[in-house]
């Protein structure tokens, strides 16, 4: 629980999603996350959402070192913290 509380939602942006990519998006994101975290069941637990219709990427609750590792992955454009924006 302590570890889970330390995790914060990050968006892992991976660029453009090819046509029909969304069918496999979740699995690809899970594999990438599993590779970085080194634990398949944890990867399943921390991944919150997968984009994949037009945008490739996912949201996961990450620890700082996982953010750093994911940022270094070749297929990742950016990893950024989920923030709240305001109505204008």
């Amino acid at each position, binding site marked *: 629980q302590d570890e889970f509380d330390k995790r914060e939602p990050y968006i892992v942006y991976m660029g453009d999603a090819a046509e029909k990519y969304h069918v496999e998006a979740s699995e690809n994101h899970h594999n990438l996350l599993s590779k970085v975290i080194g634990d398949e069941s944890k990867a399943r637990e921390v991944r919150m*959402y997968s984009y994949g219709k037009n945008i490739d990427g996912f*949201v996961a609750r990450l620890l700082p070192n996982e953010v750093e590792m994911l940022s270094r992955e070749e297929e990742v454009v950016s990893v950024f913290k989920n923030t709240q924006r305001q*109505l*204008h």
Partner: protein
Amino acid sequence: TTRSWDFLGFVESKYRRSEAIESNIIVGVLDTGIYIDSPSFDDKGFGPPPAKWKGKCVTGNNLTRCNNKVIGARYYHLKRPNYNDTAADYDGHGTHITSTIAGVAVSNANLFGIANGTARGGVPSARIATYKVCWEEGCSDMDMLAAFDEAISDGVDMISISIGGASLPFFEDPIAIGSFHAMKRGILTTCSAGNNGPGLYTVSNLAPWVMTVAANSVDRKFETVVKLGNGDTTTGISVNGFNPKKKMYPLTSGFLASNVTAGDYGEPSACEPGTMGEDKVMGKVVYCEVGREEAGGSSEGQDHIIRSLKGAGVIVQLLEPTDMATSTLIPGSYVLYEVGTKISDYINSTKNPQAVIFKTRTTKMLAPSIASFSARGPQRISPNILKPDISAPGLNILAAYSKLATVTVYAEDTLFSIMSGTSMACPHAAAAAAYVKSFHPDWSPAAIKSALMTTATPMRTKDIEAELSYGSGQINPRRAIHPGLVYDITESSYLSFLCKEGYNSTSIGLLLGGSNETKKEYRCVDHKQGLGSDGLNYPSMHKQVGSKGTNVSETFYRTVRSVGYGPSTYVARVWAPKGVRVEVEPRVMSFVKPGEEKHFKVVIDGVMEEAMRGILSASVEWDDSRGHLVRSPILLFQAG
């Protein structure tokens, strides 16, 4: 909208696209959801959704169906999903925005009888798809990105998003990312510029592929007259729907109504909560010496406090002038600092001070001018792209409201509300873009944006910030459908621009479509970089020059495509301050047929005089002598 569209010369029905064509346009709105039972979203006369529509109507509490006007509804609440979640609008903002874009005409629309007229959207025959991404806690990045991802696939033609926050590099900004993928698929995203003006560097939504919209006034002013017992009459601003029941009311001040003893917390002269005695306030008009910001906004401000003490009305002194009319819960008027001082003097000069606050009336005023709150450029992310791009009415706009709004500033439920913000400007520009799209369905997002920018009406303003506040000027939808020439920008031009801006090849490669293998092949060095000071075929020309020295010299390279009918010849005209040279080469461009492209170069050089205070404003305009004026502002900015 009971005035704004007419003010833009976009008179009801007169310039309508045929309903059959306009009703094929689908506008996606990312906001607080929708109140589908508003008369603005009545689907009478609408046929089934266009065949291209692939979206959904996700029903829930208070949104149990869509209709042939509101054809799609989805909501995203990924961090804290709740079984009660729904796309219904409990705030009112989303309903306001959406009706401004595409609401059907509703006659006799008003708030307490004020600003009465026909409320309508700019494209009343267009369809609406709502994507709720904002909740009580705000609008989350991950929700917005999810909405973009699905809206693009659903088949929307346009996206409007009146949301913003900190300006971040494009790959860390969900609106920049989402709108980039929308642009790739032919969808223009219109964004609000933000409300942190009038300071410089306050503008948000900075990506060159979005259209960033500032807020300006229309020629309708809200006046709330206050008459004092000595016969003096003064004028303030508010939306006060109350007619006085008596000729005069006893008048007091927060200071005189104080029940604070030494050491107590709170400032009674500012009418702060808990500082006044009900016995001293009941039945009286109370004068408060503070701006509304300090009291926490109108819904919990002095009007709220005086109401809880059974006061008869409130007059609030503003620390700074405002152009924004705010609804009050009891009779109320916000007055200028000097006016407030006079009222205070009157209270202190007589034993029996009296006042009466009259119902707000609307009068004419000079317009447009940029709203004080509207965010200003320049920007820090892509310093050589001028933002905001354009301006539209965003001050005191009456449009549909949600009866489900939980925090209402009104004494009773109402179908319409008056709101101000770049949020309100954005849907005007989004509707104008949808209008252009209905005439030119095959135009790229950049071409539609160019048409709106080059035909915008430049503002005459004394403000030193000039184009940093309004971009190309106020939208003119009627002219935008026949721009004559457009500055187009392809996806590959944006990628070259990103290379020039220093984004790395690998990341840029991932933005390309195709398989994972082809995505990685992009190398900036293999692609021709955009020439000149900005490196992008943008409809405005902007450069932040070094802070040292007074001599400036910049070159902009541009390509335009003829979108008129038949052959045409355009001649360049330039405007520049004295002592500044703007050279256009060539000065004449002849087009044999539509679709033809021509290149030109603009060189601006001169001396940044001290009087310019770091802002050199000029323009170039192409004139075909047949009614097409294709105008680009040029703005050089010197920090410090």
